[in-house]
């Protein structure tokens, strides 16, 4: 067999190792999920790959396992302490879930007329923060980073015992009630107990043994 062919065969063989499965995909074939290979994008600028940032749709066929469902509507208070997964991080005020980080306008509309509104314009620019009070609940918004006219929800404060969290804890309850309902906090100091999830947190500020204020807030 002419040795010359080896040169070509070797070249081609080194490349063809991935050839075994054909492109046409059967259901479970993960032929396209070349995660590592793809993300370590070849620097071949011809495909200008390194210019296309990693925002490319992940071409993996398996759908990710569903995120732990964020139960936004109120649950019946359970006895067993809720693990972080099932704590409601979006406070519900007369039927409307206030999801921090989301656009404020639609939520504020549903909440209806606020008792008082405090506007805090920024030092020099057009955007402002707003404080809406609904009885014992105070909702705080902030101007979107890139679009000044768009306001986003930043925080919900429960300032008196008239409002309770979805898990049934309210201002004035004791620290032990809190631990009974919420379990061990993610972060804790004598002044506050904080339960945190990705990008959000609910904080219980303590005055000695009892809760003096409850704050749902964004975590940057």
């Amino acid at each position, binding site marked *: 067999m002419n040795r010359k062919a080896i040169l070509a065969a070797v070249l081609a063989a080194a490349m063809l190792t991935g050839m075994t499965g054909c492109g046409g995909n059967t259901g479970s074939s993960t032929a396209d999920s070349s995660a590592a290979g793809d993300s370590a994008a070849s620097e071949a600028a011809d495909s200008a790959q390194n210019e296309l940032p990693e925002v490319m749709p992940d071409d993996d066929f398996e759908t990710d396992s569903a995120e732990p469902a964020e139960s936004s509507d109120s649950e019946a208070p359970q006895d067993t302490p809720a693990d972080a997964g099932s704590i409601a991080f979006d406070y519900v005020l007369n039927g409307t879930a206030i999801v921090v980080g989301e656009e404020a306008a639609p939520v504020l509309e549903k909440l209806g007329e606020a008792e008082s509104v*405090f506007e805090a314009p920024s030092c*020099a620019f057009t955007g402002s923060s707003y404080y809406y009070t609904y009885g014992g609940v105070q909702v705080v918004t902030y101007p979107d980073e890139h679009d000044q006219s768009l306001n986003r929800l930043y925080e919900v404060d429960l300032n008196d015992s008239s409002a309770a969290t979805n898990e049934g804890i309210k201002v004035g309850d004791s620290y032990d009630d809190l631990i009974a309902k919420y379990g061990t906090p993610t972060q804790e100091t004598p002044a506050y107990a*904080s339960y945190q999830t990705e990008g959000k947190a609910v904080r219980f500020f303590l005055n000695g043994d009892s809760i003096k204020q409850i704050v749902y807030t964004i975590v940057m």
Partner: protein
Amino acid sequence: MAKNKVLIAGLAMTLTAGAVLAAYQRLVQPKYMSDVVEGNLIADYYSSGMDHDVLFVGDCECYENFSPVTLWRNYGISSAIRGSAQQLIWQSYYLLEDTLRYEKPKVVVFNVLSMKYGEPQNEAYNRMSIEGMRWSSSKIGNIRASMTDEESALSYVFPVLRYHSRWSELTSDDLKYYFGAEPNFFSGYYLRADVKPAQKVPNPTPLTDYAFSDTCWDYLGRMMQLCAENNIQLVLIKAPSLYPFWYDEWDRQITDYAEKYHLPYVNFLNDDKLEATGIDFETDTYDGGLHLNVYGAEKLADWFGGYLKDRYDLQDRSQEPVLQAEWNDICARYDAEIERQLKNLEQYGNVKGEA
């Protein structure tokens, strides 16, 4: 090609490119004359006589809450404010350092609110606080300390690298003020004559950590040392702005620090001070309690002038001809501005006079 011909050609090309770019840079640099005026505050100082006994350094709680004209009229004290929007503490320090190149005030007043910002905040405010400065080691220090990670030092040295794409947003202002901005301020004071009574200030939302960052303490210490070296009296104040909240935990830290280093610390939010200064949040603020208007600023300046005069033998320099000339001009513009704003208020309902 003879060697020198090449050099001449090379030089000619670089010079022409440089000249065109410099002219273009001036065109696209923001003029801060219409919507956001605070951008010219820093540069404004250099057009003054630079002879002041009292110097305010700080953010909008300085340049909107004290009227230097009142200090001059009531006490003959020549004062200036070197402040800019959300001026951070190291920016105040470097501005003080820069000012000491030109003059030696007797008293420096620093508003402590900016202690709450421990690291660089955002590019837009940095630009307004730094670009007005004349080139000096202070400006370089200021840039290095304030740059957020998306900024490049080069774009401060050549602002055209930053503003080059503003050709699509040019307005008449860019041409009108091409050769320089009109004086808009009164020795660093930003005047507002409209009134908007204070709203019910919402409850302060508690923080998880009240401690100021080490950077802030470090720069406060350097500011104190700089004043000591030039035997200048440093006075710490907290202006009477109802928002952003000034937490008691913060106040305690500043009070302890002041006691430790024997520095005077005046918190205008305390009831006794509010009473003494006579500040009334129904009439003395133009944005619902965040900043004082001209009436509040005059009250505050009047009280504070007395406070400073008793303690730090500030002379009445109102008879010095040079100062007199400079301040007469400032006072004239000051009164004219109040009148103009009041006329606009009646006609348009806002001070800017826009329909």
